[in-house]
């Protein structure tokens, strides 16, 4: 069930990125897709009633081993978040420059290239 809701979020993002005509809206669609993927990965590692994968000084190790959530997806998501921040910065700078050149965010009006 949570996975399906995550996939719903992903498809909302796909819909927004494919259908919308406004550049900022398209960027928002891509962002939503990335959030959905990140949540999906974290959910994969979740253990019901688990603890965070950080070992304290006085922790009972065998108990920790049996209750810790998966640290690997968290590491992947950390990487994915930073990647999405980087691509956000780049795509926004492309948007700002395009706005400057064409005076609009509407991609139907930005049509120098065709064919």
């Amino acid at each position: 069930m949570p996975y399906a809701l995550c996939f719903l979020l992903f498809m909302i993002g796909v819909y927004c990125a494919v259908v919308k005509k406004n550049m900022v809206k398209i960027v928002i669609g891509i962002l939503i897709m990335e959030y959905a993927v990140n949540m999906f990965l974290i959910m994969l590692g979740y253990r019901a009633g688990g603890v965070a994968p950080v070992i304290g000084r006085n922790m009972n190790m065998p108990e920790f081993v049996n209750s810790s959530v998966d640290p690997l997806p968290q590491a992947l998501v950390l990487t994915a978040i930073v990647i999405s921040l980087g691509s956000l910065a780049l795509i926004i700078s492309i948007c700002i420059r395009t706005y400057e050149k064409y005076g609009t965010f509407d991609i139907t009006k930005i049509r120098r290239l065709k064919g």
Partner: protein
Amino acid sequence: MKGMTVIVKTISSWIKVLIFLFGIYIIFFGHLTPGGGFSGGVILASSYVLLMLAFGREFAQENLSLGVASKLDCVGALLFIAVALCGLLYGAAGFFLNFIYQKLEIGQEFNLVSAGTIPLSNIAIGLKVGASLFLIVLVLSMFRPEISAPEKE
């Protein structure tokens, strides 16, 4: 007068120190508590962004100029890859070897000095991320739409 009102300026000039220290704390304790180079670096960058929002871009730029920020960016990245390449001192198979922990065996678990190269990498990444995110906000805010008048060059 550039920037926001006096109240905002005063408060943000106090807070920025706290944010900066918090970022450094997050970076240095990244291997013991949640956090690490990335989140710490972003916090460092946001302390400068706060300055920029409150006092205007010029003030922030006096503290950390564009050129210096981009050099820090490169230096941070170079430091990180240098840590990785240092492992090669211990044989050709040692790329990214945690040589401090596994070979030199420095540090006690749960201490600040522990986990070998992990804190070093955290510091390098924190430097890199902080500098580069400050840079991106600076670059985006410096941009003004082109004026059609001919440029004097």
